[in-house]
């Protein structure tokens, strides 16, 4: 194709799919993250304790992790588009129905169970599995864009909800958030989400060359690609990736829950501690985009290992430099690495195990991540209660990041990843 023809060629439909998944992540994450703004109004109106509200959120967190592999299986077995669409419809209706909250059990069921299960359908884990089908060469880049959308959603919809709540009421705000999902995200899925480029007569990445038997083989198969999710457990990369991702969950969960109290304990004001946390969250957009972009140029596993090392170094600074210095250095370093692991982990999983069971396999890794988060949050709180300091839990979390980096680094990407296969090497590796 000449450069003039290329310039005139219509935009590859995969980019619309990407835009739609970014918007889904944007609104669903934003709506869910907004729960924090409802805490005080609900406490005031119903007299519920902070613990009761925390329990609903904590349950939702676990339900989201536990249902992800099962919803992922539905995604792989049937139609990803349908799973995402049904997930969004239920999520939108559940969010809107929270405006009718009249009883704690209602809130617990709708937010903790229904919404969290529905969110598994429209989750980043599923949309990344979908995008992996549309993009092969730029896979990591688009997955980075997708997770950045989730972060931006938190940064946009939370203030939106906060001011809407101030101007109207918590009931109107919840109804509005549900309406945004139903009226804006759902049409995006309807018009722009398709399961596979082949369904539209297209090829991944918008390639226009006719597939020949040779380039078909070269593009599609890695030596340990699986048809069923259970087969992935018979090879090392699944264990290495999931183990590293569990540590990722341990460290991000611990920090998300305890960073602000820790910073206040180090002498920062509440506002400054929150600002440091906010800077960290804003930087994760840059980190996600950057990791995705670099992952397509330099491979996934080395970069993934580097992300964990960077976060480990951040923990060292946090522990070695008491006070504001350590907190700010940590916020900067950890901010870049916060969600950078997500596009790299999913890209690596897709490259090694293929696309047929990707949503299920990624769902299992995500479950490991969530369990790690949950355990670490409770353990860090418990250790704080016993020792009166966060030094021990943070030291344990930081120390775990280095074995996680080794686990990621030791994945034999060149041997197992479809990116590095030629028809000859595929046959040779399969015969190992």
């Amino acid at each position, binding site marked *: 194709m000449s450069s003039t023809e290329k310039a005139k060629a*219509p935009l590859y439909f995969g980019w619309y799919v990407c835009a739609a998944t970014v918007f889904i992540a944007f609104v669903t994450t934003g709506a869910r*993250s907004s729960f924090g703004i409802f805490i005080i109004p609900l406490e005031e109106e119903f007299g519920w304790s902070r613990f009761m509200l925390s329990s609903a959120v904590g349950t939702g967190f676990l339900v989201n992790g536990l249902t992800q592999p099962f919803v992922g299986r539905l995604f792989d077995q049937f139609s990803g588009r349908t799973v995402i669409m049904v997930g969004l419809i239920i999520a939108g209706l559940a969010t809107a129905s929270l405006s009718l909250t009249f009883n704690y059990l209602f809130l617990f069921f709708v937010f903790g169970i229904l919404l969290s299960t529905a969110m598994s359908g429209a989750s980043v884990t599923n949309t990344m599995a979908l995008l992996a089908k549309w993009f092969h060469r730029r896979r990591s880049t688009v997955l980075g864009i997708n997770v950045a959308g989730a972060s931006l959603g938190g940064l946009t919809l939370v203030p939106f909800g906060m001011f809407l709540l101030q101007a109207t009421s918590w009931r109107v705000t919840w109804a509005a958030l549900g309406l945004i999902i139903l009226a*804006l995200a759902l049409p995006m899925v309807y018009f722009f989400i398709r399961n596979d480029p082949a369904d539209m007569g297209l090829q991944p990445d918008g390639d226009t060359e006719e597939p020949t038997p040779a380039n078909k083989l070269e593009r599609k198969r890695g030596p340990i690609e699986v048809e069923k999710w259970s087969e992935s457990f018979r090879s090392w990369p699944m264990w290495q990736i999931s183990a590293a991702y569990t540590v990722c969950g341990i460290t991000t969960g611990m920090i*998300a829950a305890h960073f602000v109290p820790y910073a206040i304990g180090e002498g920062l004001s509440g506002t400054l501690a929150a600002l440091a946390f906010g800077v960290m969250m804003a930087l994760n957009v840059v980190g996600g985009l950057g990791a995705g972009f670099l992952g397509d140029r330099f491979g996934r596993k080395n970069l993934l290992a580097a992300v964990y090392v960077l976060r480990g170094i951040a923990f060292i600074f946090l522990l070695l430099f008491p006070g504001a210095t350590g907190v700010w250095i940590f916020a900067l370093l950890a901010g870049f690495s916060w969600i950078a692991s997500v596009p790299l982990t999913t890209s690596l999983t897709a490259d090694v195990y293929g696309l047929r069971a990707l949503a299920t396999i990624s769902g299992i890794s995500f479950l490991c991540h969530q369990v790690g988060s949950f355990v670490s949050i409770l353990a860090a709180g418990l250790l704080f209660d016993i020792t009166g300091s966060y030094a021990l839990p943070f030291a344990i979390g930081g120390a775990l990041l280095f074995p996680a980096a080794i686990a990621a680094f030791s994945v034999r990407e060149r041997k197992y990843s479809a990116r590095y296969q030629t028809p000859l090497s595929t046959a040779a590796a399969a015969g190992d």
Partner: protein
Amino acid sequence: MPASVFSFILAHQGDAADPELLRWIKVQLDHIFGSGPWAVIAIMGFIILAIPIFVGAVYLMQANRRTAADTIDSEPIQQDGQEQERVP
């Protein structure tokens, strides 16, 4: 400790639910836009609406361009066909 559990919200799928952070964001936005909430609602609402509208607009523009290109591409074939009909 249990109170802090709610603030861990979905590490990797949306964070930023810490009440201190929310308070700080609100103060900063109040400072920028004044104390009226509707200005912030309008701006944030515009951003939220703009994304799907922009994507839809790009798609429609591309679709129009594709239709135009298809029309131009198909014209010579029709002319050839007409010429062939005239020959006998």
